[in-house]
C-alpha cells in the first residue's frame, strides 16, 4: 500500500465515526477500528522491504516555491513508530468502545482519535521537515480536542489549553529551528538534511537551530521544565491518556530527536543540553510519581521519568546508547499502555483512582490485577520482563558516561531515579492490588468484559515474551530502527538478553530494587514530609501567568483603543507630520524658479477677512450658530478668491455648495445643542493648538514652495487646452475635462452623490424605526419659535423667485460646455430654488406639490450618466467616449449638441435628488403631529370665498 494511503487513511476514515454514530456505537467504533487496521496492514506489507534495510520513498510537489513537498519515506525508525501508533491505536479503539459511557459522544471521540492518529503517522513518515511541522502542529490541535473531550469538566478545558499553550509554543519555536536548518542545508527534505552533518554542525546557526528544535521536542515529550502539562492532560478519558500520553504523542519529541540524531548529535552542546535535561527529568519524574495518590498522576509522572530516560540515552550521543533508547521505546510503550488501561479499568469499575481508597483488588479483579502487576514489575525493572533488559542496558551506559569530568554523577543520579521508579512501581502494585480487601470502595469492583481487558492483556503478553526472547522477537526491529537512528547499518556489538553476567548494571539494579522496597516501607512518613515541604505548584504558576497575560492584553487593548477618536486623530496627525517631515528632511531642494506676483489692496482686504473669519470660527466654535455664520463668510471669501484667480467655475460651485451646506447644517443644528461645553483641559487645548499650528505651517510651506517652482516636466493640461475644442467640442476647458477627458471621475462623483442620498435615506429609516421616533414626536423645541412659521412675505417671494431660479439653473446648465457652469452648479441652484419653497411654505405643503421621487431622480441620474457612457459602445468606442456636433436651425444661430450634455444631465439629477432627499429626512425628523396644516400658508383667495359661500348657505 502506498505510503500516501497509509498516511491519508486515518484522515479519510475520520469522517465515518462521526457519521456512523447515528447507526450506533458499534458501527462508529468498528469504522474507526477498520480504518486503523487497514493502515496497519498496509504498513506491515512494507515490513519485508524495511527489514531488508530498504527505504521506501514517495513524493509529490506541494508548494515548490517554498520547498515544501509532500514527500514520505519509510525506514526502520519510521516503521517502528508507525507500527506502535497504528497497533496500539487499534487496541485503544477497542478499549475505548467499552470504556466510554452512553452519555459521551463517541462519534466525535473516534473522529478526533483518528485525526490524531493520522497526524502522528504523518510525523513519523514525513521526508520533509516542513511537512513534518504541519503534522506536528496537527497533533497539538487534535490532542487539544481530545484532552478537552469532556467539555463540562474545568480540568479538561484547562488541561487542554495548557497542553496547547506549551506544545503549541514549542511547535512554533521548532518552526524557527526547522527554517534555519533548511536554510543551512538549502533543502527542507530530510533525506538531504541527513546527509549534511558536517555542514550543519559547522554552521554558526547550529546552536540556535538546535535549541529551537529541542524546545519543540522537550515541550512535546514533557521534559523538564516543560513536564508539568502532561499530568494535567490526564483529565482526558483514559484511552486518550493511554494512547497520547504514554505510547505516541509524547514520543513525538523523542522520535524527532532520534530522527535528527545523525546530524545534530555528537557535539558537546547536544550532550549537555539533551543528556542533562533527560537525566533531571528522569529523576524528578520518578520522585514526584512516588508521592502521587492519583493512579493516573502516578503513571503520568512515571511516563515523564521514562521519557527523560530515553532522552538522556539519546543525549549520550553514542550508538550503543541509541540502540538502548530504541529498545526502551518499545518496552515502555508496551508496559505503560497496559498500565494506563488497567488503571482505567480500576477507575471504571471502582469509580475512583485514589490509591488511598484502593487496595486488595487482586481478589476482586484477578485478571486486571495480573495484567497490572506484570506490567508494573516490568516498569520497576524486574526480570524477566522487558523493562529489566532496557534498564540494565541504560545503567550500563551511564557507567561509561563522563559528565563535566565526573564519573559518578550520571550513574549515581540514574541509580537514584531507578530506585524511585522501582519504589513507585511497587507502590502501584502494593497499595492497589495487594493488601486486604476493603469494604468502602465507591463501587463494587469486578473484572470488566473481555473487550476491555483484551488490549492490555495482549500488551502484557508482549512484555513477557520480549523479556524472555528479546533477540528473536524484537532483535531485527531494534536493529533496523537503531540503524536508521544512527544513520548506518554498522551498529556496535550488543546483545539483547537477560543475563549479561555480573556487570555493574546488575549490582545497580539490585540496589534499586532493594532501595525501592525500603522506600515503600517508609512511604507513610515520607509522603507526610513531602506534603509538608513547600514546592512550586506548576499549575498555579501557569494559570496565574496566563491570567496575567490575558489581563495585560486586555489592559493594553482597551487602553489603546478606548474609543477616544480625539486621541486617535491626534496620534494620526503627529505621525503624518513626523513622517512627512522625515521625507522632506532627507531630500534636497532647488531655489525658486518662479516670480511672485503682486496684489492690490482689495485682495489683501479680502484675504484679511478670510483670516479673521477663520480665527473667529475657532474662537467662537462653542456658539454653534455664530460659528456657522462665520464659516459661511469663509466660504464666501474662498469663492471670491477662486473667481479672482481665474476659476469662475470653482467660484460658482463653491458658492452654491456653500449655500446648500449651510442650510443643511442649520437644519441639523435645529435638533442639536446650540453650544459646546468646555471639556478639554487647558493643556490638551494647547497640545491640540500646537499640533494644529505645526500642521498648518507644514501645509502652507509646502504649497508656497510648490507655487514658486515650475513643473519639472510640462503638465498634461497643455494637451487639454489644445484639444478641448476640436476633441471635446467645448471652449470651457474645465467643463470639457470634467465631462470628457476625465468624465470617468465625474461618473464616480455622480455615484458618490447617489450613494450619499441612499445612505441618508437608509439612516433616516433606521432612526425613525427605533425608539428615537417617540422622542422626536414629543421633543419640545429648545429655542423660541417664530410666531408665524411661514411668513407671508417669504412665501410670496419664493413663489415668485421659483421660476426665475429654475430658468437660471437651465441657463447655467446649457452654457456649461462653453462657459462657466454645468450640471452640478445647475443642480445645486435648482435644489436651492426648491429648498426655498420648503423653508417658506413648510415641507408637507411643498412635497404635496411636487411629483418627484428622490430615489427615482437619483437613480435616473446615475442611469443616464451610465447609459451615455455605454452609448459609445455602439460606435465601437470605449466607455464614455463623447460625441458632439453642430445643428443649424435657420432662424436660430448655430446650436451645438454634445453627448456630454446628457452626461451633465446625470450630474444635475443626482445633485437635486441628493440634496432634496437629505432635506426630506431632516423634515421627517422634524415632523410632529399638527405642524402641517392642510394647506399651510397657501394663498388662495378662492378657498376663502368657498368657505364663505358655505357659511352663507348654512345661514340661508
Amino acid at each position, binding site marked *: 500500500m502506498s505510503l500516501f494511503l497509509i498516511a491519508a487513511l486515518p484522515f479519510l476514515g475520520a469522517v465515518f465515526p462521526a457519521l456512523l454514530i447515528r447507526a450506533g456505537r458499534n458501527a462508529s467504533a468498528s469504522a474507526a477500528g477498520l480504518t486503523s487496521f487497514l493502515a496497519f496492514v498496509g504498513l506491515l506489507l512494507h515490513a519485508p522491504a524495511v527489514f531488508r534495510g530498504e527505504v521506501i520513498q514517495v513524493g509529490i510537489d506541494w508548494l515548490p516555491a517554498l520547498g515544501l513537498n509532500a514527500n514520505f519515506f519509510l525506514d526502520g525508525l519510521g516503521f517502528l513508530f508507525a507500527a506502535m501508533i497504528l497497533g496500539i491505536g487499534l487496541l485503544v479503539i477497542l478499549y475505548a468502545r467499552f470504556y466510554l459511557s452512553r452519555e459521551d459522544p463517541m462519534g466525535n471521540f473516534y473522529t478526533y482519535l483518528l485525526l490524531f492518529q493520522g497526524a502522528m503517522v504523518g510525523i513519523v513518515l514525513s521526508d520533509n521537515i516542513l511537512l513534518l511541522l504541519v503534522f506536528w502542529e496537527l497533533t497539538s490541535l487534535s490532542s487539544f480536542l481530545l484532552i478537552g473531550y469532556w467539555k463540562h469538566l474545568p480540568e479538561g478545558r484547562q488541561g487542554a489549553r495548557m497542553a496547547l499553550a506549551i506544545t503549541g509554543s514549542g511547535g512554533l519555536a521548532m518552526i524557527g529551528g526547522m527554517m534555519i536548518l533548511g536554510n543551512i542545508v538549502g533543502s527542507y527534505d530530510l533525506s538531504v538534511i541527513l546527509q549534511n552533518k558536517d555542514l550543519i554542525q559547522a554552521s554558526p546557526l547550529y546552536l540556535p537551530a538546535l535549541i529551537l528544535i529541542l524546545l519543540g521536542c522537550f515541550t512535546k515529550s514533557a521534559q523538564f521544565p516543560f513536564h508539568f502539562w502532561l499530568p494535567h492532560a490526564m483529565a482526558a478519558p483514559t484511552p486518550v491518556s493511554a494512547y497520547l500520553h504514554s505510547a505516541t504523542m509524547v514520543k513525538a519529541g523523542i522520535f524527532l530527536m532520534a530522527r535528527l540524531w545523525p546530524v545534530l548529535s555528537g557535539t558537546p552542546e547536544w550532550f549537555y543540553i539533551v543528556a542533562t535535561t533527560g537525566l533531571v527529568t528522569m529523576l524528578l519524574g520518578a520522585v514526584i510519581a512516588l508521592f502521587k495518590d492519583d493512579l493516573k498522576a502516578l503513571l503520568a509522572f512515571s511516563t515523564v521519568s521514562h521519557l527523560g530516560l530515553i532522552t538522556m540515552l539519546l543525549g549520550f550521543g553514542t550508538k550503543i546508547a541509541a540502540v538502548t533508547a530504541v529498545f526502551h521505546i518499545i518496552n515502555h510503550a508496551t508496559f505503560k499502555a497496559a498500565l494506563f488501561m488497567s488503571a482505567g479499568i480500576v477507575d471504571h469499575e471502582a469509580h475512583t483512582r485514589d490509591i488511598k481508597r484502593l487496595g486488595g483488588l487482586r481478589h476482586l479483579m484477578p485478571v486486571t490485577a495480573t495484567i497490572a502487576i506484570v506490567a508494573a514489575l516490568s516498569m520497576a525493572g524486574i526480570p524477566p520482563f522487558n523493562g529489566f533488559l532496557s534498564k540494565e542496558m541504560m545503567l550500563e551506559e551511564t557507567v561509561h558516561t563522563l559528565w563535566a569530568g565526573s564519573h559518578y554523577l550520571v550513574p549515581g543520579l540514574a541509580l537514584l531515579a531507578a530506585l524511585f521508579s522501582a519504589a513507585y512501581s511497587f507502590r502501584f502494585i502494593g497499595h492497589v492490588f495487594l493488601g486486604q480487601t476493603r469494604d468502602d470502595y465507591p463501587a463494587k469492583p469486578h473484572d470488566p468484559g473481555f473487550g476491555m481487558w483484551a488490549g492490555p492483556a495482549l500488551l502484557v503478553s508482549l512484555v513477557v515474551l520480549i523479556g524472555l526472547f528479546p533477540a528473536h522477537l524484537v532483535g531485527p526491529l531494534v536493529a533496523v530502527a537503531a540503524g536508521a537512528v544512527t544513520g548506518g547499518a554498522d551498529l556496535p556489538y550488543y546483545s539483547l538478553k537477560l543475563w549479561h553476567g555480573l556487570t555493574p548494571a546488575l549490582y545497580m539494579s539490585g540496589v534499586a530494587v532493594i532501595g525501592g522496597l525500603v522506600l515503600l516501607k517508609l512511604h507513610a512518613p515520607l509522603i507526610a514530609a513531602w506534603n509538608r515541604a513547600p514546592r512550586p505548584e506548576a499549575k498555579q504558576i501557569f494559570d496565574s501567568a496566563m491570567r496575567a497575560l490575558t489581563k495585560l492584553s486586555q489592559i493594553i487593548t482597551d487602553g489603546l483603543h478606548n474609543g*477616544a477618536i480625539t486621541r486617535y486623530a491626534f496620534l494620526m*496627525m503627529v505621525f503624518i507630520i513626523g513622517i512627512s517631515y522625515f521625507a522632506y528632511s532627507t531630500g534636497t531642494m532647488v531655489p525658486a524658479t518662479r516670480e511672485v506676483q503682486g*496684489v492690490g489692496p482689495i485682495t489683501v482686504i479680502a484675504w484679511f477677512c478670510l483670516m479673521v473669519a477663520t480665527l473667529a470660527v475657532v474662537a467662537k466654535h462653542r456658539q454653534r450658530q455664530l460659528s456657522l455664520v462665520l464659516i459661511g463668510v469663509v466660504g464666501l471669501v474662498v469663492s471670491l478668491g477662486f473667481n479672482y484667480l481665474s476659476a469662475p467655475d470653482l467660484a460658482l460651485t463653491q458658492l452654491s455648495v456653500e449655500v446648500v451646506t449651510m442650510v443643511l447644517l442649520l437644519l441639523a443644528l435645529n435638533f442639536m445643542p446650540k453650544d459646546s461645553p468646555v471639556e478639554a483641559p487647558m493643556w490638551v487645548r494647547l497640545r491640540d493648538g500646537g499640533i494644529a499650528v505645526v500642521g498648518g505651517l507644514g501645509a502652507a510651506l509646502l504649497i508656497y514652495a510648490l507655487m514658486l517652482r515650475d513643473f519639472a516636466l510640462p*503638465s498634461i493640461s497643455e494637451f487639454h*487646452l489644445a484639444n478641448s475644442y476640436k476633441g471635446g467640442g467645448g471652449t*470651457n476647458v474645465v467643463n470639457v475635462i470634467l465631462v470628457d477627458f476625465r468624465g470617468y471621475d465625474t461618473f464616480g462623483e455622480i455615484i*458618490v452623490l447617489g450613494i450619499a442620498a441612499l445612505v441618508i435615506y437608509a*439612516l433616516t429609516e433606521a432612526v425613525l424605526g427605533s425608539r428615537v421616533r417617540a422622542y422626536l414626536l414629543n421633543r419640545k423645541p429648545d429655542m423660541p419659535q417664530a410666531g408665524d412659521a411661514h411668513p407671508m412675505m417669504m412665501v410670496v417671494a419664493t413663489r415668485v423667485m421659483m421660476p426665475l431660479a429654475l430658468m437660471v439653473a437651465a441657463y447655467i446648465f446649457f452654457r456649461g460646455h*462653453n462657459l462657466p457652469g454645468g450640471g452640478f452648479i445647475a443642480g445645486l441652484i435648482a435644489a436651492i430654488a426648491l429648498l426655498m419653497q420648503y423653508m417658506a411654505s413648510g415641507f408637507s405643503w411643498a412635497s404635496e406639490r411636487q411629483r418627484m421621487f428622490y430615489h427615482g431622480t437619483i437613480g435616473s441620474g446615475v442611469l443616464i450618466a451610465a447609459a451615455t457612457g455605454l452609448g459609445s459602445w455602439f460606435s465601437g468606442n470605449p466607455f464614455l467616449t463623447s460625441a458632439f456636433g453642430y445643428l443649424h436651425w435657420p432662424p436660430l444661430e448655430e446650436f451645438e449638441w454634445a453627448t456630454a450634455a446628457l452626461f451633465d444631465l446625470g450630474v444635475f439629477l443626482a445633485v437635486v435628488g441628493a440634496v432634496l432627499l437629505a432635506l426630506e429626512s431632516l423634515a421627517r425628523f422634524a415632523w410632529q403631529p399638527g405642524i402641517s396644516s392642510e394647506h399651510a400658508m397657501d394663498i388662495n383667495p378662492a378657498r376663502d370665498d368657498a368657505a364663505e359661500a358655505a357659511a352663507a348657505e348654512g345661514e340661508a
Partner: protein
Amino acid sequence: MTMGFLNIEFLVASAVGLLTAAGIYLILRRRTFPVILGLSLLTYGVNIFLFATGRLMVDAPPVLNKYAEVPYTDPLPQALVLTAIVISFGMTAVVVMIALAAYLSARDDKIDMPHHPEDEGEDA
C-alpha cells in the same frame, strides 16, 4: 497699484495654512459639531491647496478665446477641485446626518465613544 511687501502666493499659502490649522484644531474637539466644522475648514484648505498646484494666474480663465492668443491658467487642477468639492459635499451631508442620528439615539453628541472596561476576564 500693488502692495510690494505682499504677494499673491503668500496670501494663498497663508490662507491654506490657517484653514488647515483651524481645521485640525477643531477636529480634535470632543463634540461632533465642531469636528464637522473642522472638516469643512480642512476641505477649504485642501481645495485651495489643490487649486494652487496649477500655479496662480489672474484674469486668465481657462475658457478658450477663438479670436485672440491669450494666456490660460491650468484647467486641470480646477477640474480636480470641482470633483473634490462635489465629493466632499456628499461626504459632509452624510457625516452631518450620521452625527445627527448618533446624537438623537444617544441623546449626546460627544464624539468619543463611551468605553466600558471589561467585567473581570472570565476564566475558561
